[in-house]
């Protein structure tokens, strides 16, 4: 938090219209784009890892994929969407939404046993046996 505060202090409001001057140039955009393409290629390659390495690569592939996803996300947000160059208020606004989304839905998924999901239709619970008859000769018991 304190970092954000100091960052803010030297950011006097830009004059609307002037702040465009310090956005990336076309050349820089191309560089970022090629970086993104490379990362995407890497991502897609995980699909064949199992075959290439002849092993179950899921344990490695998933963290790699998630990392790449985050990097791509921020490359687009910070550069293409100018978050890096614009007023910090915009960054905060967007991050607020993101963080609330991650925390809240993360918690909800946890409560719904998502991380330990066994994939059964019974949501991790063993199928319920029909209740034992309350008394032997009750109708329908």
């Amino acid at each position, binding site marked *: 938090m304190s970092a954000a505060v100091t960052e803010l202090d030297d950011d006097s409001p830009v004059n609307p*219209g002037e702040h465009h001057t310090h956005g990336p140039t076309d050349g820089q955009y191309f560089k970022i784009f090629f970086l993104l393409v490379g990362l995407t290629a890497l991502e897609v390659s995980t699909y064949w890892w199992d075959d290439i390495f002849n092993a179950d690569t899921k344990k490695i592939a998933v963290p790699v994929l998630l990392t790449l996803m985050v990097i791509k996300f921020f490359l687009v947000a910070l550069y293409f969407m100018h978050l890096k160059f614009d007023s910090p208020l915009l960054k905060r606004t967007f991050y607020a939404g993101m963080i609330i989304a991650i925390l809240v839905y993360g918690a909800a998924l946890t409560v719904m*046993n998502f991380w330990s999901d066994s994939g059964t239709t019974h949501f991790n619970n063993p199928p319920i046996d029909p209740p034992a008859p309350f008394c032997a000769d009750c109708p329908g018991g």
Partner: protein
Amino acid sequence: MAIIEDQRPLELTTGHEPAATESPSPLGVFARPKANTGWRSWVNTVDHKKIGIMYGVASFFFLLVGGFEALLIRLQLSVPGNQLLSADLYNQVFTMHGVTMVFMVIMPMASAFANYLIPLQIGARDVSFPRMNALSLWIWLAGAIFFNSSWLLGGGANGGWFNYAPNAGVTFSPGTGIDFYAIGLLIMGIGSTVSAVNLTVTVLNMRAPGMTLMKMPVFTWMNFVVQVLLVFALPVITVALLLLTLDRMFGAAFFDASKGGDPFLWEHLFWIFGHPEVYIMVLPAFGMVSEIIPVFSRKPIFGYPFMVGSGIAIGFMGWGVWAHHMFASGMGQLSVLAFSLSTLFIAVPTGVKILNWMATMYGGRLKFSVPMLFSVGLVGMFTIGGLSGVTHAFAPADTQQTDTYYIVAHFHYVLFGGALLGMMGGLYFWWPKMFGHFLGERTGKWHFWLMLVGFNLTFGPMHILGLQGMMRRTYTYTSNQGFSMWNMVSTTGAFIIALSLLVFMGNVVFSYRKHRKNPVNPGADPWDARSLEWMIPSPAPEYNFAEIPVVEEFDEFWHRKYGHDENGRLVRIAKTEDVVESSDPVTVHLPSPSYWPLVLALGMPLVGYGLIFNLWWAVPGVILIVAGIYGWVMEPATDPDASHGHDDHHGDPDEPDAAEIEAGESAESELVSASAGSAGVTADGGDSQ
């Protein structure tokens, strides 16, 4: 209604050409409308004050609708074994009551105040996006009427305001009531989203010079928190409602356990929205009380940073407690424990507020005018509701209380005793600013005491009933259950509340008549108040501030009136008349009216009917929406004729000029197509099917 007819005070006093000036417009139909008198001036207005008043009138109308439903509920329950309402009708009545009160009374009434007051309190001439402001009003109203039209079209929703799955699925609720619930709330949600974005940007961007965030009045602050909460909470219920619509109309099974779906998902999504929602409902009233109490205690608000901070804290923590509504759902011990703890913590910032109000009153020169009475009423009643809230934060206790009348007592103490009492106080307080005359003081006192007594008689006994085991949402009970006496008391109380509302309406009518016969202007500052809205004439002129004030301190207006002498005693340094604004504006540039928001909004319920009954209905709806957007984009940004000496100054038309940011309008169209984008998703996304 007197409120609507009373336009005279809002008529333009100065600053505008007469309506008759004809100007040849190159764009024909897209010229901005000019009427600024008569009903047209209300239909096409983009003035935040008129929009606020319309929100107020409409929400009061729905208060009467919801109140009528409440009386039906209470009549049904007044005696055991009553057959006034059938079980099915009872379900519909309490559901419609709840949804109406939450989404069509408390929220829009708060919007009324927010719209009217935020620009005034931050020293702005209007909101950031005036046309979008009109749009959100009309969309909300269209959705509200759509929702209530279900009474005539096959029966209202009957799943409770939280509309739990799987009961809400087609299997158990085959009628169309719940479809109206889903689509009605989606439509209203679009309106609220538009308005929340608009007001968030307004607070951030439209402040007068020197009005830093920490100099904003507490009312504006609390509403700012509310708007931010809305921005983040509405999409959550939008997801839930979308899934519900897909389930009910397009054959999905998201909430149908028999087909692999999970009813829990609805509960989670609803309450992730639902708990922030309860603070969305109560914080505006907290803000009003925080304005009223200092004025009638003649002391500044105690602990302003804490007041603001606790509001933010409530808003923030409100995201982490939702599952306290699901303690009995079997979600697992760890979850119950975690949410029980977080719920206990959230009572702390709430308590801070209560202590701060009391500390503000402590040692003040108290004057118990009607607004103050309502505010003190809020402090007391809300405390009771907050305390019962804490009792069901403890999960073991809550498993006894949940779904009983004890819960009903809790949330009525916080919502009626908190939100509604506060807003009633707000009405008495800001009435002179809005309409240029006072509401009757004596009648107002009758109103207050009747309401307070009726309220406690209605909801107090519900604590007892709940602990005795009376379940909510059950249409009747038997005489040997021992519930009869308190239910009778409660019903009596409900009618006393109804009487108090009649008194209020009488007050509105009679004070208006009195004012017409013998107009006495209350002056800019009838209460010797503190914030900027009291600096401008009453009723507030169309342009708000003739000259945008430069703010130096919190409670700026007060500090212009009072200072300290050499002994540190409070003294008057200027006469009120000298401080308030009197000059006429010369170059005020106001946004021109527009019909397109209304056109756009009218399309939405048609799409809704189309989805429910016959897709052909959606066709005119979509046409209206498209026409609305098209007209919106095409109409000239600001009508040059309506401006006053301050014309737009565009350079070479072909030269893009990023530096030219006019206050508000041009690119607004883009933004609206973005939000209309989500409109498309929710309202007519299913068209293709």
